[in-house]
């Protein structure tokens, strides 16, 4: 079936980005927006905008009934859920089927298989992938026992989580219960599922993921991304391909991701997240994200594809338009996430109204944003305001381009982390590439120790 009208059940830069692809493909767009986003850039760009409820996401962007009712009322053929919110929600997928609307994403069964992180672990084992030691906990007593068995420090992860939400480190047994309570509250708020599980915390690890695309039969990979620059499990900088990986290891990771996708007969765009254990020179399966991801533009840059267009094509029931041998990866891409937060004050969020914007234009530079003069950054949603992506011939060229590009960005009226990215790009360790997730917190500590911070 050909999709002619898409309801976008999301907000922010990803809503803008989906509108752009649809405009290029000649597909009509209807934006499902909360009351807080009715005059957002995405609302101005979409062919139509429909209000799905109050600002609070639980009553709008997380409301399956409201989203599907909007799609039916707008006579949409399909729903694009973006990332976060209902993007991996089986109820939305099922409600779409019931209403005769295409859900642009994997099947409900596949969402179940990977959405529940414990089920995903067992599928990974079944597909022959290595997993991090750990497991489910039903009670606080059990949690203590599991934690003692796998050893400290440990990670508390939301079963219904993803994208780093509801995931916390615990270093001492005393803090376990308190941390689990907090993680469960965040998981409940973000995903409507408070269950958590425990995993060993790998101290010298790199977060490397593989982009996959499947049509239900064939699965291909589009290379690796390195997302090791993180703070509290929120990615801040991503790059593709992952630099300084032993070739044999990179190919094993590609193979593992494709094997996992094949095992699920995966249909759609997905990401297999892996943890590279540098000390043991190996990797583990972490989870699969069954949606388009924030950092997808770095992959688009090196493979020359429009991943939203590929999602739509697969959702229409078409076979993959390219085979593995058609995939050519070239150059190196880096993305910086510009967030409305003050990195000098413990990353305090900075909601408000944007007064001015200026962004660089030129060959190899891409900006995905919903910011413009007058745009609001409401306190109800996440702090991402723009993504700056550069694509160079190689990594060192890309780092130079990013330095240049950052110096030409301006977002007035709110505090952003622009200067943090600018400083990070000057660091020798960043320029060298191949650092672990321990690098960025160390960089921050050094900044704090050097003074001028109120964190």
């Amino acid at each position, binding site marked *: 079936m050909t999709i002619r009208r898409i309801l976008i059940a999301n907000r922010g830069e990803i809503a803008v980005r989906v509108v*752009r692809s649809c*405009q290029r493909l000649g597909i009509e767009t209807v*934006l499902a927006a909360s*009351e807080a986003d*009715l*005059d957002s*850039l995405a*609302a*101005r*760009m*979409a*062919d*139509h*905008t*429909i*209000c*799905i*409820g*109050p*600002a*609070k996401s639980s*009553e709008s962007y997380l*409301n399956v*009934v*409201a989203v599907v*009712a*909007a799609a*039916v*009322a*707008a006579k949409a053929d399909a729903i694009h859920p973006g990332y976060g919110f209902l993007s991996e929600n089986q109820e939305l997928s099922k409600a779409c089927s019931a209403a005769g609307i295409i859900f642009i994403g994997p099947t409900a069964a596949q969402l179940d298989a990977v959405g529940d992180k414990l089920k995903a672990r067992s599928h990974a084992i079944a597909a022959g992938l290595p997993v991090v030691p750990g497991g489910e906990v039903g009670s606080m007593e059990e949690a203590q026992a599991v934690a003692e068995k796998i050893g400290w420090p440990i990670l508390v992860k939301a079963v219904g989580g993803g994208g780093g*939400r509801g995931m916390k480190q615990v270093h001492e047994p005393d803090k376990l219960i308190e941390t689990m*309570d907090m993680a*469960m*509250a*965040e998981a*409940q*708020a*973000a995903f409507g599922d*408070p269950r958590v599980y425990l995993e060993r915390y790998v101290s010298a690890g790199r977060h490397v993921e593989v982009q996959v695309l499947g049509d239900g039969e064939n699965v291909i990979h589009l290379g690796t991304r390195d997302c090791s620059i993180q703070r509290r499990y929120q990615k801040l900088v991503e790059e593709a391909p992952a630099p300084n990986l032993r070739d044999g290891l990179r190919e094993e990771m590609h193979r593992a991701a494709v094997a996992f996708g094949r095992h699920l007969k995966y249909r759609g765009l997905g990401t297999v997240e892996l943890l590279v254990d540098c000390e043991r020179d190996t990797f583990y399966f972490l989870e699969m994200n069954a949606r388009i991801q924030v950092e997808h533009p770095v992959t688009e840059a090196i493979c020359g594809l429009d991943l939203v267009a590929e999602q739509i094509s697969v959702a229409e029931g078409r076979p993959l338009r390219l085979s593995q041998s058609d995939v050519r990866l070239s150059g190196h891409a880096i993305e910086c996430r510009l967030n*409305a*937060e003050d990195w000098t004050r413990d990353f*305090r*969020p900075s*909601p408000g109204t944007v007064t*001015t*914007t*200026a*962004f*660089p*234009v*030129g060959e190899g530079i891409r900006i995905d944003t919903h910011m*413009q*003069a*007058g745009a609001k950054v409401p*306190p*109800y*949603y996440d*702090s991402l305001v723009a993504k700056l992506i550069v694509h160079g011939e190689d990594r060192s060229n890309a780092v130079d381009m990013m330095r*240049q590009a950052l110096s*030409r960005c301006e977002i007035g009226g709110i505090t952003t982390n622009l200067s943090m990215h600018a400083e990070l790009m000057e660091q020798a360790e960043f320029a060298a590439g191949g650092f672990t997730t321990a690098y960025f917190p160390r960089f921050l500590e050094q900044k704090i120790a050097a003074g001028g911070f109120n964190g």
Partner: protein
Amino acid sequence: MKLTNDDVQDILQLINVSSFNELNLQTNNFKLSLRRGGEGEWTQSSQELTAPNLLEPVVAAVAASAPVAAKSTLPSVDGLIDVRTPLLGTFYRSPKPGSPPFVEVGSRVEKNTVVAIVETMKLMNSVYAGVCGTVVEICLDDAQFADHDAVLMRIKPEGV
């Protein structure tokens, strides 16, 4: 007419070979300004002005559910310590839905007792009592929106 990124690139190609260093373009639907920097690099500021094309909402917006921001101007009360929100956001009295509240009026708190959480931009921020004493007033309802610097609670300090 919509202005796409490709359009901006086309415009850039045209003016790149010109002697102009700045281009300002405005229609009813958009504003675009392009500026050339000292090393020939271009920067753009754009603004989409098209008004959103709103369809009738399917779910009637409930006026009462719009968050009522708590006033930050509550007068201070002599002898009581105000616990203010660290950030603007949604005030929660319990660690998770269905759990008992962190504190009630009459609860004794230490300086580092967590008395509430405030959710801002999807982050849960713990609110600490900041003082040893007894909670005498909880100024906001659970899940109410706390504006900048709003007073969440008042505590009668001990040993003063």
